[in-house]
């Protein structure tokens, strides 16, 4: 009334003016190129492919099952299955992608691909400096650009990666133990039959029976 509200408002802005010099909570701006926010662990931008070991081609967890391609809301994933197979972490023979492309100009970073992936292969990255001068080639990421080591995954999503690593290690041990047991049983059976010359190895595990824990 009669200007008292205006005075109150002026006091408020004055408070904010002086507060901005001593109260860091008021200044939420991050001066970007010099400072960068520490992104929370859950943060996600675009997908990437996880590989184990050193070789991106050999260690790629993806089995080209195409679930992510089907579920992707924007249909920005393009996968071509390779005809050959290679063993996965538990030693089963799996298909692997010949082509795995993600058009990140279309990708909206929803993370559904990472959620539906049964092989813990596609995960959400945290890079955000993605701008390029080339609209077409640079924004279409191929398998080589998408593949990143498991150690990187462990660095950006430590909790989730730790759980997955433990689970995969358990699977591997179980599979090894099973293989060992199988081999022993086979050997025993072989010894019993006393026909060692004919059979020397266990049959390879069928690729269809992959069961994530």
């Amino acid at each position: 009334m009669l200007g008292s509200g205006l005075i109150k408002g002026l006091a408020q802005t004055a408070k904010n003016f002086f507060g901005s010099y001593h109260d860091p909570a008021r200044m939420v701006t991050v001066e970007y190129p010099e400072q960068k926010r520490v992104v929370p662990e859950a943060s996600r931008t675009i997908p990437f492919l996880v590989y184990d070991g050193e070789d991106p081609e050999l260690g790629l967890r993806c089995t080209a099952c195409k679930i992510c391609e089907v579920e992707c809301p924007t249909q920005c994933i393009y996968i071509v299955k390779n005809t050959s197979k290679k063993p996965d972490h538990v030693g089963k023979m799996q298909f692997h992608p010949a082509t795995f492309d993600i058009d990140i100009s279309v990708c909206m970073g929803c993370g559904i691909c990472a959620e539906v992936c049964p092989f813990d292969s596609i995960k959400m990255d945290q890079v955000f400096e993605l701008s390029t001068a080339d609209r077409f080639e640079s924004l279409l990421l191929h398998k080589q650009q998408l593949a990143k080591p498991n150690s990187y995954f462990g660095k950006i999503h430590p909790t989730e990666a730790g759980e997955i690593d433990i689970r995969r290690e358990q699977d591997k041990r179980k599979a090894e133990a099973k293989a060992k047991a199988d081999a022993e049983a086979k050997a025993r059976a072989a010894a019993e039959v006393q026909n060692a010359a004919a059979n020397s190895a266990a049959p390879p595990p069928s690729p269809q029976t992959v069961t994530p824990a």
Partner: protein
Amino acid sequence: MIAPREEFKSWQSGVAGNGSGNGSGNGSSYGAVRSSEAKLVKKTDDSLGGDLLEVAMGPHHPSTHGVFRMDVVLDGETVVKLKPVFGYLHRNHEKIGETNSYLAAIPYTDRLDYICSMTNNWAYVHTVEKLTGLQPPERAEYIRVIVAELTRLVNHTCLIGFLVQDMGALGTPLMYAFRERENIIDLFESLSGSRMMFNYMRFGGLRCDLPPGWIEQAKRVVANYSRFLDDYEALLSGNEILLARSQGVGVLKKDLAISAGVTGPMLRASGVNYDLRKVDQYGIYNRFQFRIPLGEHGDVFDRYMIRVLEMREAVKILDQALAQIPEGPINDPKAKLRGLRPKPGEVYGRIESPKGELGFYLITDGSPNPYRFRIRPPSLINLTILEDMCLGQSVADAVIILGSVDIVLGEVDR
């Protein structure tokens, strides 16, 4: 796309330097205004005044909150006719929903009203849950209430910032609003991974559980928020200029509001007690003590005040929810992520989004994607009443009336 209309042609060829009358504005002929040939329309029986001036405000006008256009006919500065034109941001949302799976529609709902992605998610999963009978566990319900009320805080604060910006306040309240919003979207980011497009809720539950320490951080944010609201009100609520600009401006009568299907704070500012959190009691809203503030005059100031008071109530709900939240699972054990194929049928689910009643209408035919996917956007329905509120007011008022409607063009045009 909309073809170039006659107004545009006349806009390009016509001379804008024609004066407009400042006299009294009675007795303009409506019929003449409608003929798109004439840009300046002769008034019939006004000896003093000049002609009517037709201005296309938008779609790139600074204060139409996006690509919205108001074709206004002005007598001096008084609005005698206003036609809202929208569709510039049409993104085919409903058709995409019909071709995608049920799961794949969730990230698209984030982009409806991109300030309130959480409530959009909730409205959609609430509808599908109604269809499939999935029941989220208690912890998930609490988290939903918490994020929805935080969204309400974000939306109302930003809306007030934009509204006062439309009144010409050089962005100061808006910057304060964004400062506080930052705290809340930091919370949402640590929860869902994204700052705006959360994609957080799932049928029968949530995508992921709260990260450790989240509740404490949320409690801190909420405690700060009531302090911030006091400051915000000290800056705005008593400001004589704001009072003069908003009181008695853009009055929406109760009957008209009801018959036009207006919902949300706009309806409550007109004095109608209708809040789906009380009416439907969806989720677990019946467990919390909160009240519904009601306006009396239905003007811009009431719409502003109702939002402030709603924020204070939201803070109360948040206090209760954050204190009561139990441990437990966050997903219905029956729910599965992929391959949802509901039985044929139809369903309409609605929640009280910060802007009003947000509803999803689905017809299913047993296939993995809905047969019909329809959204009832509160922004659009509330916008249809714009002309009735703006007639007889000045063009500066039309701008703040539009601001007080609280639209997001992503939701209006879908």
